[in-house]
């Protein structure tokens, strides 16, 4: 069994809308892609720096709300007689604003909590997500509260010579999500293979030692938090313009849990782990839906999760890598024992 090269995977993924005509299947794949981006962003913090962001959905939601509000426009009564009017802007600008605002909050949370880190970071992120949810629920002037932001415009692309293309259909949205997935993957890969990535891993493994060789621990943690939050914001922006409605339920704790499950089962601290996890837990619910009621489905996920953690504690991707290595070692006379994958 030979490994597919990266371009073959990309070509395969790009070909899917050509032979998958079922709109529902495409919808499932788009959702899976959005979750894959979110899981990759969480993995940067959880897998590479070892910090658990249990409020990661906050950055996702902030990206979604920001992108939706910028593209819908809004007005705010700031003082008696003065209303601030924000005209609707193009969707791509909203999307970038969502990425930027989520990144800004990542910086803020990182600065606030990484002086103490560990358990404190977990608590700060959980609280942060709850606070943001309350704001979204109660600042009705801006967010419409539980009435939700409706009719969010889809992504529009103006192609020179071809006029405007508005992403109403599944196919263009699929390609958009695929593009953001690949871009996020490339950014994270570039980052973790750089000097900064080495620093992330070093401080995850032995913080005191990392500090003693001159790694500025707080600075790198904040950097990881900013990039992670910005990518989560991008996932939120994709979601907002695809689903076209955003309400405060986007901040539900369960979404963070789903991201953590994806990262842990796929393999935290590996580039492909969160993608594999997202594919499994993005598609599985849809398969199970036909045979099991929602409550039963959750029990089944829980069971799968326990099995994976029990038998493949490192996650699926590292387990597959060591299995592949063991096969290679037994096949070649020299062996690959001892070599690190």
């Amino acid at each position, binding site marked *: 069994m030979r490994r597919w090269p990266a371009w073959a995977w990309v070509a395969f993924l790009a070909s899917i809308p050509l032979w998958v005509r079922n709109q529902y299947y495409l919808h499932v794949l788009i959702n899976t892609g959005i979750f894959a981006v979110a899981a990759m962003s969480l993995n940067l913090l959880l897998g590479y720096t070892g910090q658990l962001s249990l409020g990661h959905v906050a950055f996702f939601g902030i990206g979604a709300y920001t992108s939706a509000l910028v593209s819908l426009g809004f007005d705010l009564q700031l003082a008696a007689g003065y209303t601030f009017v924000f005209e609707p802007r193009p969707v791509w600008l909203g999307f970038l604003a969502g990425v930027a605002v989520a990144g800004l909050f990542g910086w803020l949370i990182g600065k606030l909590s990484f002086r103490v880190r560990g358990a404190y970071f977990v608590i700060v992120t959980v609280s942060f997500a709850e606070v943001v949810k309350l704001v979204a629920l109660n600042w009705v002037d801006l967010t419409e509260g539980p009435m939700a932001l409706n009719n969010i415009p889809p992504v529009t692309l103006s192609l020179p010579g071809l006029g405007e293309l508005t992403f109403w259909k599944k196919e263009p949205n699929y390609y958009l999500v695929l593009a953001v997935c690949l871009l996020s993957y490339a950014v994270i890969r570039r980052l973790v293979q750089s000097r900064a990535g080495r620093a992330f*891993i070093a401080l995850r*493994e*032995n913080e005191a030692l*990392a500090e*003693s060789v*001159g790694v500025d621990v707080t600075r790198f943690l904040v950097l990881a938090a900013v990039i992670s939050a910005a990518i989560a914001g991008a996932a939120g922006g994709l979601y907002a313009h695809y689903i076209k409605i955003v309400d405060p339920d986007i901040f539900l704790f369960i979404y963070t849990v789903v991201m953590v499950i994806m990262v842990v089962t796929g393999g935290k601290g590996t580039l492909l782990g969160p993608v594999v996890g997202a594919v499994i837990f993005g598609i599985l619910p849809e398969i199970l839906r036909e045979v099991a009621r929602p409550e039963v489905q959750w029990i089944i996920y829980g069971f799968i999760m326990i099995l994976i953690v029990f038998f493949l504690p490192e996650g699926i991707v590292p387990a597959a890598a060591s299995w592949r290595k063991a096969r290679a070692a037994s096949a070649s006379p020299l062996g690959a024992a001892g070599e690190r994958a």
Partner: protein
Amino acid sequence: MLVVEGLVCRYGKVNAVRELSLRVEEGELVTLIGANGAGKTTTLKAISGLLRPAAGRIVFEGAEIQAASPRAILGRGIAHCPEGRRVFPYLTVQENLEMGSYLRRDPAGAAEDMGRIFRRFPVLEERRRQAAGTLSGGEQQMLAIGRALMSRPRLILFDEPSLGLAPNLVETTFDIIREIRNQGVTVLMVEQNAYAALEMADRSYLIEAGAVALEGRGRELLGNPYVKQAYLGG
């Protein structure tokens, strides 16, 4: 080269180091001996900047460094080889060494130093692509020493280099440390094994309850009745 004056370090309300003073001259091999909890490790951490002292001065080559960051102190030429978990287990041997030159801006010089370390410790070169966590205890110790050398320090702080090593490796480790000193790097070492620490040192400090109880040439302290009775088991 290094002067510590009136150093006080606290963990919460507990004074781990109280008014400790010591000095290390260029080219010396100085050891700190004393019981567990006497404040030896804390002193090293304060010197390398991992711990902010509550009071006192630390002067390295004429500059006060007690308030400097670990990065700044490393940049001035003090490397710290901490006790316990000495390497980054999931990074390869080569990546561990590269972490040692993290602050250096001269890749050519760092590569040259890595070559020198590989020549001195051929086993590390054989295993350069292997995860450091898969090395034996002795190999990990060599890697930790190699990593400290990668910053091209003028002063190395060794914290319990013999801890957890098999007896034959303890001797090898001490030989390497002597060799480093003979190449002109000043060494300040904390060591539980009082006999070895006193025998190999130019000068030693006996630390008790966070302060210096005795100071002298290594061999002098070896013959000191109090040291003999309390630390050498005779």
